[in-house]
C-alpha cells in the first residue's frame, strides 16, 4: 500500500510538470483530458517521461487506453521492471 501511495505522489508530481493544477485536487479518478486539461500530445509526452521516471517498459497499444490517473497507476504497478 505504501509503494502504491508513493507512486501516486510521484505521479502527481509528474502531472504538475505538465499542467497547472493543485496537486491535492488530483485523484485516481481524474481524467487526463477532461479533468486535468491535457491534450493528446501532452499525454504522449508525459508517458515517455513516465517510462523513465517509473522504470517501466510501456506497450504503446496498451498505454494509449489509459484515460485516468488510476488507469495509469494500475498499468505501471503491473509492469514495473525488476
Amino acid at each position, binding site marked *: 500500500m505504501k509503494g502504491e501511495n508513493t507512486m501516486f505522489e510521484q505521479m502527481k508530481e509528474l502531472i504538475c510538470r505538465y499542467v497547472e493544477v493543485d496537486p491535492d485536487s488530483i485523484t485516481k479518478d481524474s481524467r487526463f483530458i477532461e479533468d486535468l486539461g491535457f491534450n*493528446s500530445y501532452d499525454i*504522449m*509526452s*508525459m508517458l*515517455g517521461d513516465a517510462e523513465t521516471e517509473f522504470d517501466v517498459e510501456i506497450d504503446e497499444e496498451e498505454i494509449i487506453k489509459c484515460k485516468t490517473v488510476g488507469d495509469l497507476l494500475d498499468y505501471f504497478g503491473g509492469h514495473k521492471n525488476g
Partner: protein
Amino acid sequence: MLKNIGGISYECYPLSSAQRLNLCNIKEGTTDEVENIGAGQFLQIGVNLAAMREALNRAVERCESMRLRLWKDPETGETWQYIVPYQNEYFEYYDFSEWKEDKITDVLNKWTSQPFDTFGGKLSRIVILTLPDGYNGFYYNVHHVCMDSSSVIAFTRDVIEIYCSLMYDMPYPKPMASYIESVKRDLKYEGSKKQQKDEEYWQKQIALAEPMYTDYTGPGRLMQLRKENKNKKQRWGLLASSDGKGSTITYELDYDSTMKIMDFAQQNDIPVSIIILHAIRTVLSKFNNECTDITITDLVSRRSTLDNKKCGGVRMHAFPLRTIMPLNTTVIESMRMIKKAQDELFIHADYDPLKVFGGLAEKFGAAPGSTYASVDFTYQPGAIGAINDTLKGIGFKSRWYSSGKQPKPMYITAMHRPSDGGLNFYFGYQTECATPEEIEFLYYFTGRVLFRSIENPDKTLKEIIDMT
C-alpha cells in the same frame, strides 16, 4: 562551451534538432527571410507609449530566446547559439490610424521580408503601432531559429500581461521559463535511453515498404516525374521551389460550423486535429485515384511541460504521418487509426526529424529534397484565445504577415480566431508549387469531406469520396 565572439566570451550551445530543421529551409536555395515570422498583436484601447516600451523591454529581458544569436565558428564551420545580455531598447513607434488596412498589410509584409543577418546579427525587430479603429499594439518580426508560433503567442501574452499590470494594476505575470535550460534538456536527450527507443521506432517505420507520394493537385506531378526519371515505379515526389517565393491564403470557417466540429470531437473523443487530418487525408486519396497509402507531414509543437510552454525558442518537429487503410474503412475507424498513428508519433517526437527524412531518402534512393507528403499540417488549439482571459472583453486582433517566401510548398495551419473561436485555415504555399485556384479547390474539398464525414461517421471512405 565558452567561445570568444568579437572579443567577448559567451557560453555557447549546439543547435537543437528543431533549429537545424529550420535552417535547412535556408540551405535549400532560398534567402534568409524565408525564416522570418511576422506577427501583429493589437488591443482596442489607447496606448501609453512609455508603458508599452517598458512592457516590451521587460518581456525581452524575461525571454532568453529573444536575445539569441547564432555564430559560425570560422575554423570548424559549426554553428553555435548563445544568449546576449539584456540591454534596454528604444522601440520605434508608427501611427497608421489614418491608413487603409490593405496598405498597412503591404507595409508590414514588406518589413517581414527584410532578412536578418542569420549568422551574426540581431534576430528580431519590434515596432509599436497605432492602427485604425482605436487598435494599438506591436508588430513583431523574428527569425524562426529563435521562436516558433507557440513562442510568439507566449511572448505576446507576456507583453500584454506586463502592460496590463503596469497600467491597470493587474497581477504581474509569472516569470518565463529558461530557454537555455530547455536546450540543456534537449542535449541530455542525445544518447539517452529515450533516444534509443525513439530510434528503434523510427527505424522500424523506415524499414516498411516504400510510401506513396500523393499530390494535392492529383497524380499529374508524380506521373511527370516518373517520365522524367524513366522510372514507372517511382513513388517519391519532388515538390520544391527554386526561390521559395510564396504567399498565404486564409479561409475563415464560421463559428457555427466550427462548433459542429468541436461537438463531434467531444462526443467521439477524437481531437480536432485528427478530424482535420482525416479530411485532408481523404481528399488526397480522392485526388489520387483513391490511393490507400497516404502520408502527411505532421508538425508537432513539443510544448507539453509547463517549462516548455513558456521557454520561448523553437521546438517544432515534423514527421511523416503515414496511414494505410482500405476504402471500406469507416470515417470513425479512419479517425481512430490516424489518432493511433499520431499518438505513436507523439511518443517518439523528440527524435531528430532530419534523420527520419534522410533515412527514408537513403533507403529508397530518392533525390535530395524528395518527399512522400505534399502537405504539411499543424493545428494550434486556441492558444491565442488564452490571451482573452487576461483582456476580459477588450477588443484584440492578431495578424500574421508574410515575408513573401514560404519554407514549405504547402503548409496548412488550423488555428482558432481570438475574436470568436471559429477556425481559420492558413494555406502557406510556394507560388511555383501551387496556384490560388488549386488552393481554393483543396480547401473546398477538405471542407466538403470534413462535414460529410462528421455527419456520416459510419459511412466508408469510398462512400465519402463518392458523395463529395
